[in-house]
């Protein structure tokens, strides 16, 4: 028998499923080699720009009659009119997968590989009115649609789990709407992360567990949390359920572009613990040799591993012996969770030894190379003074964690508290707190205020720099970090957050090339004076003073609730030509056909036609700036 090669890995290095650490495989998108052949509507291109203002139905002939999505087609027929300019322009190159279908060339795209359990990440960009979908295993669709500004998203909006169109009662599946609409405006890149668990089948091929979206994130916001999909959704590659199938992207309903497609395939194994014997000793000891000869307080055999054994209190050692039974030779991954300390030997060699005294919630991952069949193991779990609950769990983590222990050994726990959400009612809701910019604790902003709009458009404003720092739609705030227990003074936006920039946006500059200062609360130059509440709207109007000028800053959503307009008004003094406004900052700021600007293809800035703004480069960053000439200036932020 080949001696198993044992390899202990640290948590951070391991392919931990729910973290960011999984080793993702990229689809290079240098060509279409990762996909099955198709009619030609799919291509690899360099750069794609999409005019957000042009609806595809204004240039596209009505799609042909098809069995699925009849309703949508009907709507699009109504909207269709004479052909005009396509909203999509692209350049030759690589890195972007683009679908440009027409009435006849409109194949779906299938991966050349098949998958079961998978983690999938991608970025997607669509024009106004377009429609596509990502089918896991070619059978379970996460819908892609231009759902910008939709208040109450449905199963058919972006991120929705699509329905099917079966008529037979037991085959109907009505889909599931996303938890929230995290959609961005057309023409912007949107990120999607899907954790999918394939259906499970018994030996005779009967399905025993449904397919499951473990989670789906759109633009960083969770839109599905651990939901089953009991049946294939509409338009599957084949109307059945199988352990493995290809990834499919819908290509018959309008242009769609993808980039940065990355995935990690996982396969659950049937590795198990067998022939389990245990011995309980009265005191904690990590010394295996002495335990082997000591007489235990109790002992016996087990069907399932558990630490919930008679005589196990605060100060004890449990010695488990048994076999790891692997279906075939290979690397197997495990996770152990424990309160206390553990020692794992596999086939006589140490695989894991955790001796830290204070493992309140210890967690270790280990990868074991096992031969087919049974490999003996010894697991020691021991614990002394810290009188924490006795908890020991062991999971097989080749794919989503599968418990190898009895539930009593590692029972589910109640969370400490429910979340404390701050909702917006019929008036704007304001709340000050710390904000971790881009979610980073080391970028914590200390003088920020969240402003929630009744129309569902929200932003955070930095009172030290006098500028909006991030915007989002949907629910308002999670204040649990601030208000639970002692709290840490911070809140978190609840939604797909578009970060803008954290520094000042209005400053006196010595020349048009001068950089903006890092902060503005230098004495004399700038003084925040808080805000007033606008009586008509209930919205805050921020007030500050700058070298004798008084400025009011009013950020307000439009009626549709899909963009914010910021108006700066000089109520005392006039801009003297040295007062500059920074509207945006990013790696690439480009002009759009309608005169607006797109920042890193993440958000748009729209400026009134009669205003002049320029793109300049400072410290390798592009900035959209303008000297202020009149007593009032406004622009819109669209995302």
């Amino acid at each position, binding site marked *: 028998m080949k001696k198993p090669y044992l390899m202990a890995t640290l948590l951070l290095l391991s392919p931990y499923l729910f973290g960011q650490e999984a080793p993702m495989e990229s689809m290079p998108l240098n060509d279409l080699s990762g996909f099955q052949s198709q009619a030609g509507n799919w291509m690899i291109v360099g750069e794609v720009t999409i005019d957000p203002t042009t609806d595809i139905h204004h240039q596209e002939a009505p799609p042909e009659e098809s069995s699925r999505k009849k309703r949508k087609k009907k709507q699009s027929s109504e909207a269709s009119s004479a052909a005009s300019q396509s909203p999509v322009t692209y350049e030759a190159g690589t890195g972007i997968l683009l679908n440009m279908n027409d009435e006849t060339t409109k194949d779906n795209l299938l991966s050349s590989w098949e998958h079961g359990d998978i983690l999938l990440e991608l970025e997607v960009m669509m024009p106004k009115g377009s429609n596509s979908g990502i089918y896991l295993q070619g059978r379970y669709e996460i819908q892609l649609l231009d759902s910008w500004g939709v208040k109450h998203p449905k199963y058919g909006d972006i991120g929705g789990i699509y329905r099917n169109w079966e008529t037979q009662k037991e085959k109907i599946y009505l889909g599931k709407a996303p938890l929230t609409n995290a959609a961005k405006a057309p023409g912007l890149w949107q990120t999607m992360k899907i954790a999918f668990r394939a259906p499970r089948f018994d030996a005779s091929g009967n399905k025993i567990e449904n397919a499951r979206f473990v989670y789906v994130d759109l633009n960083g916001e969770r839109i599905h949390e651990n939901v089953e999909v009991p049946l294939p959704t509409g338009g599957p590659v084949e109307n059945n359920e199988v352990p493995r199938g290809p990834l499919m992207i819908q290509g018959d309903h309008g242009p769609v572009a993808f980039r940065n497609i990355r995935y990690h395939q996982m396969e659950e194994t049937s590795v198990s613990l067998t022939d389990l014997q245990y011995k309980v000793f009265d005191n904690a000891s990590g010394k295996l040799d002495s335990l082997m000869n000591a007489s235990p307080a109790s002992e016996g055999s087990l069907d399932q591993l558990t630490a919930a054994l008679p005589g196990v209190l605060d100060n004890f050692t449990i010695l488990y012996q048994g076999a790891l039974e692997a279906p075939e030779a290979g690397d197997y991954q495990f996770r152990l969770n424990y309160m206390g300390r553990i020692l794992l030997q596999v086939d006589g060699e140490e695989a894991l030894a955790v001796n830290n005294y204070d493992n309140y919630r210890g967690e270790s991952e280990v990868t074991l190379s096992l031969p087919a069949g049974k490999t003996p193991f010894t697991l020691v779990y021991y614990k002394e003074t810290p*009188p*924490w609950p006795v908890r020991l769990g062991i999971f097989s983590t080749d794919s989503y964690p599968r418990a190898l222990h009895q539930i009593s050994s590692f029972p589910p726990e109640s969370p400490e508290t429910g979340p404390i959400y701050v909702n917006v009612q019929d008036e704007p809701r304001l709340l*000050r707190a710390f904000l971790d910019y881009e979610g980073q604790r080391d970028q914590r902003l*200390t003088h920020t205020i969240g402003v929630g709009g009744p129309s569902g458009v929200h932003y955070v404003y930095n009172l030290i720099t006098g500028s909006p720092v991030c915007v989002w739609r949907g629910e308002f705030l999670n204040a649990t970090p*601030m208000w639970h227990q*002692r709290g840490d003074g911070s809140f978190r936006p609840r939604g797909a957050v578009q970060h803008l920039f954290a520094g000042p946006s209005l400053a006196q500059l010595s020349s048009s090339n001068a950089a903006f200062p890092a902060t503005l609360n230098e004495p004399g130059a700038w*003084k925040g004076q808080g805000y007033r*509440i606008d*009586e008509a709207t209930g919205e805050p109007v921020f007030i500050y003073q700058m070298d004798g000028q008084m400025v009011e800053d009013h950020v307000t959503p439009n009626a549709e609730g899909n963009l914010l307009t910021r108006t700066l008004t000089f109520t005392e003094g006039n801009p003297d030509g040295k007062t500059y406004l920074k509207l945006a900052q990013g790696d690439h700021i480009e002009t759009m056909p309608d005169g607006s600007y797109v920042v890193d293809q993440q958000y748009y800035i729209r400026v009134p036609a009669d205003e002049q703004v320029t793109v300049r480069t400072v410290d390798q960053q592009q900035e959209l700036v303008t000297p202020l000439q009149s007593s009032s200036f406004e622009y819109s932020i669209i995302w």
Partner: protein
Amino acid sequence: MYQKILSFLYTLGLLAVPALSWAQGENPPTEDDYYRIVTLPTPEGMLLEVGGMVTLPDGRIALSTRRGDVWVIENTEMFEGSLPRYTRYASGLHEPLGLAYRDQSLYVAQRGELTKLSDTNGDGRADRYETIYQWPLSGHYHEYSYGPKFLPDSTMIVTGNVAFGDEEWWRGESRVPWRGWSMQITPEGEMHPWATGMRSPCGIGIIDGEFFYAENQGDWMGSGGIWHVTKGSFTGHPAGLSWAGEEGSPVDLTAEQFYAKIDKRQVKENGRYVKPENIEDETDPTFLFEAQKEFPNIKLPAVWLPHGILGISNSEIVTIDNGEAFGPFNGQLLVGDQGQSKIMRVALEKVKGEYQGVAFDFRANFQSGVLRMTWGDDGSLYVGETNRGWGSAGSENSGLERLVWTGATPFEMKTVKAEPDGFTIAFTSPVDKASAEDLNAYGGRSFIYKYHAVYGSPTVNEEALKIKGVKVSEDGKSVRVVVDNLRQYYLHELNVLGIKAANGGQGVLHPVAYYTLNNIPEGEKLPQSEWVTRRSQPSNAQQASRAIQAQAVTSTPDDPNASSAAPTFAEIEPLLIKNTCTACHQADKRQVGPAFKDVAKRKYSPEKIVELIYQPQPENWPDYATPMAPMPQVPKEDAMKIAQWINSLR
């Protein structure tokens, strides 16, 4: 229930024996007979974690909450049983921990700024949130800001907590200017640094136009207390000294100068900082008064509030300034406590130009931590409560209560004043002379706290007070107590457990006074000819029984028959109180620390429990926010009895 028992025992002067000298068969008076707590109802879902509170000129009460709201409440006295009404005046503030009123506006300290709130359109809701002054923050959770309080010149005082270290999570740090400082801010937004040395200056008060603040036990703070903060003073926590060199700083002591003389206790072992711990049997510990001789900026607390006895996290300070409306203590101070959910009473006097004075227990059993207090126009005291994650006595995490004087005068020590040779105790009503002229009616000790980088301090240099004689005044309302061993700077605990009221015969409601003797006054000593030196025999002097038994607590002779059995609750209760265990622990309910019952479940040996009393291991209790401080001052035999009792709760 446990709290009730506790309060009952306090009331009894640490005693629960049947042979009480007064009113056989009647219940002894309790705090409730004199000061009644009324809880104000709130609409369902409204959480009043009170951070600031002020009475408006029209009698309404305004309060700010942790959730960022300012509520204005009318009909707080609930006239004829009608409900109070709440109007949201402002919202969205960042954990405001203060509230003041001036000229039709409210002023509030948010975490990062002083804000003026005004209602300009008359709808009862603020529509102008004006930044008066903004100060920097690092974003650490502990950087709370408190205030403002108006000084007579219409400037405002705001104070700021320190942050804590990342690796040195135990060490208070001032990461950005003016953390650990008090700031004086004009209504126009000019800021002048006022003083430093603050660690957690949650309780601020203006007394006779002077700025006072209450501090909590912590690193460099052996115990809580209240300080008179003159401009430029340094109250003890060195973190804020980092900014003493900044422009405008009135403090001329730098961190370098300080640490050149005082050990920072910053030690690395194996590349990691080691948390400084109390040094047991330290031969020459530093005391704050000694450090003051080196650094005259150091301000001693006017009154120590001994940790665990008179609170564990002192808060708001208010003056009783409504004449007779609140009982017999006009002109004295009340100090709240968050952890123990109670209020203490303080009487100050000026000796040799400095404030010092005496502190007593006053009223316990609020439903949550007492953070803020304000006087109602009806003469009652409104108490704003929260424990915000630190745990507190009482059944709730927050609330608003009202304390009403019932009109009955409690039999209390009204004041204790220092004399060149002891103290004069004034009573609220005449004492029974026979009881007061018995030296066995009195007892006490003096002690002090260490000044070191360690979290808290045990009481050290303890010494029993040697009471040489007493003189009771003609009217029976005061007693001069001559003490042989007064010690300047020390905290003098003086009990009058044996004294009875002339009328009714009951004991003093709160029979223990804590006098901080920063200065011993000059003047005439009492001639020996005027003293009474009689000591009753315990066996035949029933009036002294309380005192005798209380003292016996420390040296109960072991009953040979009971030595192996676990002590009873009645036996152990006085020990728990005396050793301040009850400051944080209850028998069967989690408070600041775990219930004794939960400790029992850990199945420690009694010896192990004793060891843990002296060297606690807070890491064993990760679900508790406040770490237990080592308690080396607990006598070993007490600790062992407590341990045996704890284990009997299994």
